Each structure stands twice: as C-alpha cells, then as structure tokens.
C-alpha cells in the first residue's frame, strides 16, 4: 500500500460527492486576446476590498497621488492597504455603492487620473536573499488578498510557519464563463511559477499541486512547460465539474483529505492560493507592483465582443461593459462573478475590486431567470449534487419552518452556497436564498441570545446589589434608631431636669439677665452638641454613606429644602421691610420652632409663632437697631429637623416639595431673569455632605438676594413652611422605620 504522498506523487486523483455539469461557455473568451481599456474618467477605490479591516487613510481630498502609492496604511495584521491604480488627484473620499450583493455604500476614494501614469519609486526584492518577515511585509504592503473570490489577506495564509505538507494552487476556475485565470496562465505561466517559488520559500511544503480543469488545454500546456524541471511542482488536470474549485472540494479531489468541520485547511497541513494571487505575489516581490489591476472576464450575449480585460482596480463596471459594446435589453441583469455564485448589480457605477473575476451581461435567453417557485417534491436531486453532502431538501423544509435546531443538526453551516442544488431543482426553488436567510437568522438569533444572557447577568447583579443595599440600609437604620432612642431618653431626662430647675426657679419672679443669657448659651451648646453628634454619626458609617448615596442626598435635599424655606421666610420679612439687618430676628422664629419640636404639636401654633416673629421683626426694624446675624441659629434648624424627617416617606415628600419649588423658581427666574438658577442648581446636585454645611451657604446668599420676585417666592415658602410644620406636628411613630 503506497503512502498518501506516494499516491499523490503518482498522479492519483480522488472525487468529491455531487457536483454538476452546467454548460461551461468558456470558449467565448478563453482564446480571445487580453484587452485593455482607456483610462476611465474616475476610479472608485473602496478602502476595504478584503476580509478584514480597512487600513488607515493616508491621503485627503485634493492630494495628488502617484501610481502605486498607498492610499491606506496597514496598521494591523487584518488590514491591507489599497493603492492608487494610476497617478492623479484624489477628488473625495465618500460613501459609494459597494461591490457586494447588498451594494450598500461604503467608504470609497474617488480618484481622477491625470493620464501621466507616473509611478512612485519602486524597489524590487530578490526573494532568495530576503528575510521571511520582509517578504510577508511586502505581500501585505502590496495589498494582496485572495483573488479567487473570498479576499482573505494573503500574507496571513502565507505566513504559516510550520507543518505545511501541500501548497495547492487553485487554477480550477470551475464556474461557467470565467476564463480570467485561464488566460493569465496562458500568458504569464513563468511569472506564476516564480510566485510559487516565493510561496515555497515562505511555506516550505512537501509538494505543490496545481489543479487545473481539463477544459483549459492551453493553460495546462503553458503551466506544464513552466514547471518543467521542478520535480515538486505537480500540475494536476482535474475533470471539469462544478464546484471542484471550491477550496474544500479541491483538497478532497487532490489529496483525498477532508478539512474537518470548523477547522482550516492549514490544520491538515494544506495551504491553498488562487493562481491570480500567486501572480500578484510575484509582481509585488520582483517588480514592486502592488495589486492595482487584474484580469476580468467581460462576457455575455448583450456584448458585441466578449473578452478578458486587464483593468485597473476601481474601474466602474459600466466602463468595462461599454468597452465591449454593451447593448442592454429591458430588465437587463449584470452579474459580478460567475453565473453560479455571482451577484447581480443594481447599478453600473459599482467598481471593479480585487476579487472581481468576471462580469456577465447575459440575455434573457442565455441565462433564463428562475421561474415561479413550485412545491418541493422531495426528488432528492439536490442531495445527489450537494458537494458538502448535505440534504438540501430537508434543509429547505426546516428553513421554511424556521426550525433552527434541525437546521443545525443538518449542518446548514457547512453549506458553501455553491448553488448546485438550486441548479438541478426541478421545482425551481431558490434553495440557496433560503439557506442564506436561515443562516442570517441563526446568526441574528445567536447575537440575541448573547444579548439576553448579558442582560440576565446584568439584571441578576442588579437584583443582588439592591438586596445588599436594602440589607445595609436596614442595618444602618437599626443602628441609628438605637442611637436615637438612647439620645432621646437622654434629652428627655435633661428636659425633665430643666423643667424641675425651672420649677425651682419659678418662685423667683424675675430672671436676671445673666440667667437668661446663660440659658440661651446652654441651649446653644445643646444644639451644637447635637449637631456634633449628628456629624459623628454621619462620619461613623462612611461605608454606608458611600454605598447608599440615595439616603444621604435625600437628607441633604431635605435639609436644603428646610434651609430654603427658612430663607424664604427671612426673605418674606425682607420683602415687607427691605432692611437686610432684619434677618436676624426672623431667623429666631424658626430656630425656636426647631429647637422645641416637642412643644410644637399644633400647626396653628407654628403659624402664630411665625406671625409673632414677623411682628417682632417689624418692630425691631422700626426701632432700627441692627443686630449682627447670628449664623449659629441657622444651622440649628436644619440640624434639628432632619431628626424628625428620617422617615423616608416624609423625606421624599420634602424632597418633592423642594424640587417643585425649585422648578417654580426656575420658571419664575426664566420669566424675570433673576438669580434663581443659582438656587436650583445646588438643590438638584446637593453634594453628599452633612446637611448644615450645605444649608448655611445656601441660606445666606438667599436672604440677601435682591430678588424682584421675592414676594411671590416668599408666599410659596411660607406655605411650605406651614406644610412642614404640619408634618412635624404629626405623631412621631413613623419616624423610626426600623
């Protein structure tokens, strides 16, 4: 039993499943001389013409470029540049219909040739004395991508460092009509062989297999002559059958090997290159000619003369057709690529790209359009011809039913979309189209599944976080409640003590001035102590503060609201009596209210107190004895009030009120153009600091602000203050949510 290598060496061929024999129609162009066309007026060069990413743009509109000058730079492995096919001026870089079945616009450089054909400086390389990385870099910089149709970056395929047994040169060209590779081999066989030499230096394979279909006798002879004396270069003549030029099919045909599902040919020691690509490699290395032109078959019965044309990349299809005497019929089809796998063009503006090997402009009679789709009769003709050994009749059934599991089980992903099944289908079912749609849907589904999974993970993380926050809040609230209760008890004790003292002191009919001052001082001290305690509390649980920002801003907002309310009251007083000095007595009123929360059970009382305060303020204003503003009294109020506002609901209400007010103020401000915005902003973005610190600076400027709308504001503020007083007067049991 000879080894596989011996079998291959001896010229044995294998066969792959299925395949069809459509009329080849290659004689139309295979022996016609390669044509040239005059420079088109504009060249449209898509920035990305391969599988991968576009390079970085190097030129801008208005630049003058030389022939062969790189227009983009390959800044990573999957990028390959595009070059100016001729010298001229860059007109623009814009979205332009692409050479893709969708014809969706893509960034394209528009070049106006100057007709001078001025080359950039070129540097030929001697591949024998060039390092491997340099050769690969040259291939990449020359912008070479697989020219058989897929457009995979050639330098990546050629850069495989180990374990290449066979280098296969794909010169099969199995699709009907196309003869671009055929004529290339007829005319450039020696250059192609030099390209193979370069690839052999890069890949070091055991043997090179050059697969050519038996309907290209001239090309076969030319290649055999060019390969004479190269023992390892084996020209393999394969029987004409579509799609023997498919990568996997040709591998099976020449080596009996199958590329395992989901792997690459390199995994079984095979690298395949299209013969056009090999030619481009030779040109790039030996003459430093980047990939700026290619041979394209322009064929069809609507053309006066079908031929192969060596055309510049970026030439509009219309220019190519016109050069061949294009006389379109109504509802003309123009196909880019072969009749089996090519795609129709919606417009002739679409440019020739690196992967375009054929343009067909057939008559209706030549390539009749598919008739109406009929029901599948399960004749199985499709399964007989499928080169991937699938069951197209079952796949189309499942594709119509959107049964994605069965589609996967029937290996839809292995479909190479060669079109053999649709070609033989007696019911003229567009099978390939169904598979394309199903594949796209499966891809979309997978994307959605991934998205759903991520969303689920996000949701669960959020749920966990909320749960954790809730727990932490509860713990903190418990701790706070305990502290507050102990403090309350202390307070009560002190109050009782104070009451007893007062009772003891009552008999003494008049209090001395010193005593009153002392009493005031004591109360102030109390308030300060309480404030300090509060600040300590806030600092005591810094972690909680950081993790639950929701609680603190609320407190801050509440405090701010209160401060504003108070400020409004002061402003009220100011409005009645526009003397800034009056603020001091006005402040005294809220201070008292706040300092004696126990006594305040009646909202009316609060109102009365406020009225008295105002009256007093007026009186004082009349006497015009300005007192310095005791800043301490301001913080007292907000400090005391949050105590009763720890109820989240209350806090929320207060916050809502504050917001509403802020809005109103903003509206008024908008109307009157005042300093109101200054107020609203700090309200909404109240920092997470202890309440009094925020409140004080806010309250102070407020009082002195010469607000034209102050009267209105003051009225609102008074109403809010009343509401707040009411709230405070509510029974205290909801204060402790724990």
């Amino acid at each position, binding site marked *: 039993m000879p080894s596989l290598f011996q079998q291959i060496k001896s010229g044995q061929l294998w066969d792959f499943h299925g395949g069809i024999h459509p009329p080849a129609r290659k004689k139309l162009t295979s022996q016609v001389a390669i044509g040239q066309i005059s420079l088109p007026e504009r060249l449209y060069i898509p920035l990305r013409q391969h599988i991968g990413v576009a390079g970085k743009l190097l030129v801008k509109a208005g630049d003058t470029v030389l022939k062969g000058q790189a227009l983009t730079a390959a800044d990573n492995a999957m990028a390959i540049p595009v070059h100016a096919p001729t010298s001229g001026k860059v007109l623009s870089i814009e979205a332009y219909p692409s050479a893709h079945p969708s014809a969706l616009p893509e960034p394209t450089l528009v070049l106006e040739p100057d007709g001078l054909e001025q080359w950039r400086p070129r540097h030929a390389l001697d591949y024998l004395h060039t390092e491997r990385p340099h050769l690969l870099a040259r291939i990449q910089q020359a912008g070479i991508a697989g020219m058989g149709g897929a457009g995979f970056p050639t330098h990546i395929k050629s850069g495989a460092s180990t374990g290449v047994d066979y280098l296969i040169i794909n010169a099969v060209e199995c699709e009907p009509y196309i003869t671009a590779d055929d004529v290339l081999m007829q005319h450039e066989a020696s250059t192609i062989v030099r390209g193979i030499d370069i690839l052999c230096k890069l890949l070091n394979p055991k043997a090179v297999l050059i697969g050519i279909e038996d309907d290209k006798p001239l090309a076969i002879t030319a290649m055999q002559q060019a390969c004479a004396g190269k023992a390892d270069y084996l020209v393999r003549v394969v029987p004409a059958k579509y799609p023997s030029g498919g990568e996997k099919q040709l591998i099976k045909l020449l080596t009996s090997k199958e590329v395992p599902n989901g792997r690459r040919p390199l995994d079984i020691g095979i690298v395949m290159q299209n013969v056009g690509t090999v030619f481009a490699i030779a040109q790039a290395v030996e003459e430093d000619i980047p990939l700026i032109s290619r041979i394209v078959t322009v064929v069809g019965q609507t053309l006066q003369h079908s031929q192969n044309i060596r055309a510049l990349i970026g030439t509009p299809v219309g220019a190519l057709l016109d050069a061949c005497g294009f006389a379109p019929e109504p509802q003309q089809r123009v196909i880019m690529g072969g009749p*089996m796998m090519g795609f129709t063009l919606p417009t002739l503006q679409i440019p020739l790209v690196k992967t375009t090997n054929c343009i067909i402009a057939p008559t209706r009679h030549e390539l009749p*359009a*598919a*008739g109406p789709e*009929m029901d599948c*009769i399960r004749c199985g003709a499709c399964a007989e011809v499928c080169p991937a050994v699938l069951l197209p009749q079952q796949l189309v059934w499942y594709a119509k039913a959107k049964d994605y599991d069965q589609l996967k089980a029937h290996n839809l992903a292995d479909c190479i979309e060669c079109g053999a099944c*649709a*070609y033989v289908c*007696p019911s003229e079912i567009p099978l390939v189209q169904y598979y394309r749609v199903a594949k796209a849907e499966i891809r979309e589904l997978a994307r959605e599944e991934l998205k759903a999974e991520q969303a689920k993970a996000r949701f669960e993380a959020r749920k966990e976080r909320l749960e954790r926050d809730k727990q932490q809040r509860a713990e903190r609230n418990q701790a706070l409640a305990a502290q507050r209760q102990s403090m309350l008890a202390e307070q009560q004790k002190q109050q009782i003590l104070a009451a007893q003292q007062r009772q003891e002191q009552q008999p003494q009919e008049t209090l001395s001035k010193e005593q009153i001052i002392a009493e005031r001082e004591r109360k102030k001290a109390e308030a300060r102590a309480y404030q300090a305690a509060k600040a300590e509390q806030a600092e005591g649980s810094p972690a909680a503060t950081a993790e639950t920002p929701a609680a603190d801003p609320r407190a801050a907002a509440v405090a701010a609201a209160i401060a504003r309310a108070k400020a409004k009251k002061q402003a009220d007083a100011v409005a009645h009596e526009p003397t800034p000095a009056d603020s001091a007595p006005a402040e005294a009123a809220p201070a008292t209210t706040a300092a004696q929360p126990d006594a305040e059970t009646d909202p009316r009382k609060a109102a009365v107190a406020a009225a008295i305060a105002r009256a007093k303020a007026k009186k004082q204003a009349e006497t015009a004895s300005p007192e310095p503003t005791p800043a301490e009294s301001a913080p007292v109020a907000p400090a005391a009030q949050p105590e009763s506002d720890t109820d989240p609901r209350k806090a929320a209400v207060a916050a809502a009120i504050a917001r509403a007010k802020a809005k109103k103020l903003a509206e008024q401000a908008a109307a009157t153009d005042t300093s109101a915005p200054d107020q609203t902003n700090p309200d909404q973005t109240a920092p997470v600091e202890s309440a009094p610190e925020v409140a004080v600076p806010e309250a102070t400027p407020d009082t002195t602000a010469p607000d034209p709308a102050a009267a209105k504001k003051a009225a609102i503020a008074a109403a809010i203050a009343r509401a707040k007083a009411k709230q405070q007067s509510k029974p205290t049991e909801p204060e402790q949510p724990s």
Partner: protein
Amino acid sequence: MSFRIASSPHHHSLAQTPALMRTVALAALPGIAAQLYFFGYAVLIQIVLAMLTAWASEAAMLKLRGKPVLVRLKDHSALVTGLLLAIAIPAVAPWWIVVLGTAFAIVVVKQLYGGLGHNLFNPAMAAYVLLLISYPQQMTSWLPPTQLQHHAVTGADPICLVFSGYSCQGFSVAQIKADVDGKTMATALDTLRNDLTAGKTVTESLQQPVFDSYAGLGWSWINLGFLLGGLFLLQRRVIQWRIPVALLGSLTLLSLLAWLADSDRFASPLFHLFSGGTMLAAFFIATDPVSASTTTKGRLIYGALIGALVFVIRSFGGYPDGWAFAVMLANLSVPLIDAYTKPRAYGHRPGI
C-alpha cells in the same frame, strides 16, 4: 436604467417538475398498451375517468385552499396520481370506484395533508387500499385475458361493464369471469393462492390456463411493459436506481430463498417478478419521491422494505397481492429511515 436583481445561481438545469411528470406518464405507455391488448380498452375508460376526476378535485381543493389553481395544476402531479390508480384497479371495475378512489387520493391523501410534497402516503396507493378494503368484490373483478374469455368482451361491452356492471348482452362481471365449466377464473396470483390453500403444489397450480410458462398469462407482458417504461425513466434520470433495484433485489432474494427451501409451497422468483403489479410498483409507485425516503442510503432501505413486505404478504398474508399495503407501511417508516440515514456531511468524518 434599472437592472434586474436576482439571487444566485443565475443558471438552471431546465429540468422541471411538469416535464418530469409528463415523462412519467409517457413511460407508462408500454405497460398500458399491454393491458389494452390483454384486457380490452376498458382501461382507457378508467384512465380518462381518473384523470378528469383528479383534475377536477385538484382544482377544487386548490381553489378552496386559496392557492393559484392554474399554476399548480400545471405541475401535472394530480394527473399522474390518477393515471397510476387507473392502471392499478381492475379494468372493468364500476366507474364510481375509480372516481371515488381518485377523489380520495387527491382530496384527502394529498391536499388535506398540504398538497404536493407534503403528503405522508402515496396518494394512489392509499386510495387503492381504501377501495380494496371497502369494495373487495369490485376491486378483484379482473377479467381473464381476452383469449380465455368464454363470453368475449367486445364492441361496446367495456363501456357497458364500467358504467352498468353488465355487458351489452347482459352478462355480469362474474359470469364473464367464469370459464367454460362455470368456474371463476381469477388473476394468476389469486389462482395460485386459492390452489395453494386447496392443498395443490405450485407446479400443479401452474398447469391452469391463466398461467403461461412462468407467470400469469398477459401479466408477464404487462410487467415487461412497465419494466421497459421504468428503464426509460432511469435513463432519463427522472427516477434514481436505488429504490427499484433494492425493491426487486429484496423480492428476488427472499422468493429465491423460499423457493429453494420449498418449491412446492413457494412460487419462483420469476413468478414474483412478473406477476401482479411488481414492475408498476417498483418503477412507478415506490419511486414517488414525495412519500419515499429522501436519503440515498434510506432509499435502499425503503425499497428493500417494500420488496420484503410484498413477499411476506403474497406468501403468508390474506391478500393475493400486497403492493399497496407494502408501500403504505414503508411510507410510514420514512421519517425514521430518513432520520437514521442522514449522510455524513463533508468534514464530519469521525476521527479526522
């Protein structure tokens, strides 16, 4: 100007379902000609009746289902169904038998399952089974070949028989079937079966006038006719070789083994191959792609299963011939066969 947008491939082999169906009808001609020769032109009346019924019921059902009537009618699948049923039933069966059968085949077996391509059972065979079970007398009213007829069926007799049940002279089908001695003559398979039941050996039975040298008189020619048509279909690639070859192969093999074991009790493989509806079933009925297995391996199994079932029914069952039952049972196993004979796709070989 606007260009026509189409999805690849842009080329088509021009093999189309209507053409395939026409070829099938064409290929049935030699067999029909032999029937005509041995059993008179009644078979033509049946074919015309069946085709008209098939066409009418298909059109009515398409209309009811809101499908484009004319487009679908043009696939000719209904006509082929009617044709096959008309060939399969006795030529002088009453007219309503073929009308009922065809209507059932099209309306219930085909259209109610979703139309062409969706039916689980072969419509012609399902209808045949319905008729055979419901109207056994009419469905076994095969006349002896014209050469053996005591009361010759001539002139307008076939028309009278089909539409009234009596010949123009007033003989009933039963009377025409009787031989000179007044004994009822049946088909070769019926005769053999009755003889074997009566204790005769195969060799003794074959002495009877309904047999020629190795199979039923006339029936061997009819089978040859259908064989010829089948080979034509193979040559035109309308059918593939797997089902007929597997079917005939398994039938031959089993009957050969049985015959070698006991040639008195079992008929020869040749008798099996050229009696009853063997060739018609092998090339025209079992190859109906819709209800057959769709994988290459599965088709071998499917054909072999039918062949084996026919042998078993013929040799041990209650009916003299068993094509319809065999095909329907095999139809039932198709989803299972398909599921287990999925081909190994490229690159899915284990261990590579």
